[in-house]
C-alpha cells in the first residue's frame, strides 16, 4: 500500500512536469516557431505605445532572449528555490514555491492562486455535495419507481440539466433569483467561510444549485441505471431473503454496489471542478481558479497559465488518486499493489 502510494506520487510529479513542459511549449515555443520575435512576444505585455528599446528591455527582463530550455529551467528553479523580482525602488524575494510574476499585473502568481483556491474549493465542495445528494436520491427513487410519473418527470428534468449550458442556466437563474426576486446574492459575490459562514453559504447557494442542477442530472441518470442493474442482482434477492427491511436492502446493498462507477465519475468531476470551474466561475463572476485560468489564457500571461495548469493538473491527478484509494475501500475485490 505504501509502495503503491509512493509510486503513484512519483508518477504524479512526473506527469506535472510533462504538463508544465507541454504548457510551456504551447505558450512559448509555438509562437516562436510561428515567427514571433522576443520583442514581439514582449509587446503583448506592454502598453500600446512601447518603442523598440523598451520592448527590448522588457524582452530582456522576461528572459525571452534565452533558449527555451533556459527559460523553462528558470521556471522550475523558481518553484523549487524561489526567485528575486525587481519592483522598481526595491527588490522582492518570492519564496518557493514561486510560480513567477504575472507578465501583465506583475503580481506574484502563487499567492493569487492560493487565494483563489478557497473560492473554487467552496464552489466545488458545496456544489458537489448538493448534486451528489440530489442526483443519488433522484436516481434511486426513479429506479425504484421505474416508469412512474416521478421517474419520467425526474428524467425529463435531468435531460434538461444535462443539455443546458451553464452560462445559460446561470444567467437566467441570476436574473430570476438575484435581480428579480432578490433571494440570492448577485453575480460576483463571495465571502470567505472563515469570515462569515452564513454569508459564505448565502453568496454561493445559487452557483451551487446551478452547478448541482447541471451535474445532478447526469448522476441521477447514472444512479438510476446502476440501481436498475444492481437491484436485479442475485445478492439483492439474498438480502431480501434474509428478511432485511426494503430500505436497508436498497441503500446498503443496492446503492452500495451502484455507487462504484458513480464514485469514479464523481472523483473526476470534483477534480476537474477544483482545477477550475471555468464556466461556472465565469458565469457567476466568481474569483476562483477557473476565472483565473480564463484571464491567464486570454492575456497570454504565461506564468499564470503555467501556475493554473499545474494547480489544475494537481487536483485532477490528486482526485484520481483518491478515487483509486476509495475504490479499494468500497470494493474489497480491488487490491492496490
Amino acid at each position, binding site marked *: 500500500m505504501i509502495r503503491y502510494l509512493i509510486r503513484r506520487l512519483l508518477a504524479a510529479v512526473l506527469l506535472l512536469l510533462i504538463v508544465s513542459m507541454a504548457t510551456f511549449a504551447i505558450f512559448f515555443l509555438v509562437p516562436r516557431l510561428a515567427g514571433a520575435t522576443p520583442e514581439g512576444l514582449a509587446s503583448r505585455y506592454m502598453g500600446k505605445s512601447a518603442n523598440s528599446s523598451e520592448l527590448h528591455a522588457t524582452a530582456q527582463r522576461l528572459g525571452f532572449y534565452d533558449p527555451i530550455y533556459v527559460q523553462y529551467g528558470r521556471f522550475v528553479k523558481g518553484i523549487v528555490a524561489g526567485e528575486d523580482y525587481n519592483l522598481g525602488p526595491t527588490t522582492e524575494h518570492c519564496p518557493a514555491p514561486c510560480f513567477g510574476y504575472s507578465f501583465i499585473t506583475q503580481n506574484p502568481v502563487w499567492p493569487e492562486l492560493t487565494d483563489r483556491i478557497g473560492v473554487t474549493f467552496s464552489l466545488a465542495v458545496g456544489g458537489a455535495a448538493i448534486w451528489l445528494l440530489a442526483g443519488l436520491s433522484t436516481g434511486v427513487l426513479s429506479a425504484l419507481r421505474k416508469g412512474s410519473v416521478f421517474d419520467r418527470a425526474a428524467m425529463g428534468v435531468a435531460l434538461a440539466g444535462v443539455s443546458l449550458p451553464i452560462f445559460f442556466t446561470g444567467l437566467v437563474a441570476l436574473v430570476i433569483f438575484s435581480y428579480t426576486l432578490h433571494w440570492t446574492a448577485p453575480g460576483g459575490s463571495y465571502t470567505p467561510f472563515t469570515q462569515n459562514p452564513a454569508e459564505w453559504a448565502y453568496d454561493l447557494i445559487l452557483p451551487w444549485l446551478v452547478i448541482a442542477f447541471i451535474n445532478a442530472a447526469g448522476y441521477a441518470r447514472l444512479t438510476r441505471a446502476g440501481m436498475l442493474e444492481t437491484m436485479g442482482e442475485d445478492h439483492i434477492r*439474498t438480502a431480501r431473503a434474509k428478511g432485511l*427491511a426494503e430500505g436497508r436492502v436498497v441503500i446498503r446493498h443496492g446503492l452500495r454496489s451502484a455507487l462504484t462507477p458513480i464514485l469514479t465519475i464523481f472523483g473526476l468531476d470534483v477534480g476537474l471542478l477544483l482545477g477550475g470551474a471555468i464556466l461556472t466561475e465565469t458565469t457567476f463572476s466568481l474569483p476562483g481558479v477557473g476565472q483565473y485560468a480564463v484571464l491567464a489564457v486570454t492575456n497570454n500571461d504565461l506564468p499564470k497559465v503555467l501556475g493554473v495548469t499545474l494547480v489544475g493538473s494537481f487536483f485532477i491527478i490528486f482526485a484520481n488518486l483518491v478515487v483509486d484509494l476509495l475504490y479499494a475501500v468500497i470494493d474489497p475485490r480491488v487490491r492496490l499493489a
Partner: protein
Amino acid sequence: MSGTLTTAGESLSPTRVPSSFLEVRDLRVHFKTDDGLVKAVDGLSFAVERGRTMGIVGESGSGKSVTSLSILGLHRGGNTRLSGEIWLDGEELISASREEVRRLRGQKMAMIFQDPLAAMHPFYTVGAQIIEAYRVHNHVSKRVARKHAIDMLGRVGIPQPARRVDDYPHQFSGGMRQRAMIAMALVNNPQLLIADEPTTALDVTVQAQILDLIRDLQSEFGSAVIIITHDLGVVAELADELLVMYAGKSAEYGQAEQVFNRPEHPYTWGLLGSMPRLDRDVRERLISIEGTPPSLINVPPGCAFHPRCRYAGRDGIPCRTVVPELLGEAHRVACHLPSPVRTRIFGEDIAPHL
C-alpha cells in the same frame, strides 16, 4: 406417508387451516409484461412436513424458482399477480402483510441460492453478511452475533471459522461459499429451508459434500426442506417426496421412490432419460425430450406438454384440447393416457433404455 399427500388433495377448503407444516394451495403467479401475461405458476398445490424433504424438478422456466420465491414473499407487488394460499405453520402468507412476511423471512423460512458468488454481496465480508442476517431477527450485540456467525461457519464445515469470518466472498472457494451461504440461511434455525439449485454451480466432488451437509443439518435441525433442481440425481439422494413441474403446473407428484421407480408422466420419463449414466452407451438411450420448453405467455392448449410428447393424440386422447387433471391417490399424475397404458409403456418402452 400417504397422509401427506391426501392433505394436498382435491377436497381443500380455503378457510381450513391445514395440519401440514407448509401447504401450498392452488398457487398462481402471473406476471404482466409488455408481451403479455406470463403464467409462471398456474394452479400448483403441494405440502411438506417438518423433517421431510421435497424435491421440485423441472426444466428452467417450469416455475420451480418462482414457486420458492413466492413462498418467501419475494414476488409481490409491481406487475405480479399472486393468488392461492400458502400456509406456513398455520399462518397464511399471501394474505399476510409485507411486514409479517418479512419477519418470517430469514427466520422461519430461509433460502439457499444457486450461485453463491453472485448471491453474496461482494463488498461485505462473509461474517458481516451472516451477522446481518442474524441481527435482523435477533436483538443481540454485534459481538454476540459475530460469535454465533463463527459457530455457524464451524458447523457448516469451514475450517478456522474465526479467521475466515472476516474474509470476503471472493476469497472463498466455490464449495466454501456455498457452505457459508448455508450457514447464513441456517443462522436463525429456520423451520423451512428452500434450496434452489444448491449444487448447480459447484464442482461435482463438492456437490456431494454440500448435499451431505444439507442432509446432516436437516436431521440436526429437524426442518422441512424443499430442494429445487433440474438434476434428478440430486433429489434422488435427498428427497422424500417429488414434484415434477412443467409449464407452471404439477406433472407428477408422489413419493420420491415411486416417482423414480415407476414414473408415469412422459415428461418424467424424459427427465429420467436425460440423466447421465456411466454404465450405458449413449446410443442405447433413446428417451430424451425434444423441442424447447413452452412459452409461458402462450401456453399450448390442452396438455402443455403435448407438442413434445410422442404419445400425444394416441387413441383419440384429447391432449390438444383438454387440460389433464392431476389425478391419483398417493402417486398423482396429470396425463390423459390411462394409467394402465402408462404403466405398460414405461415397463416396455422406457425402463429398458434407462
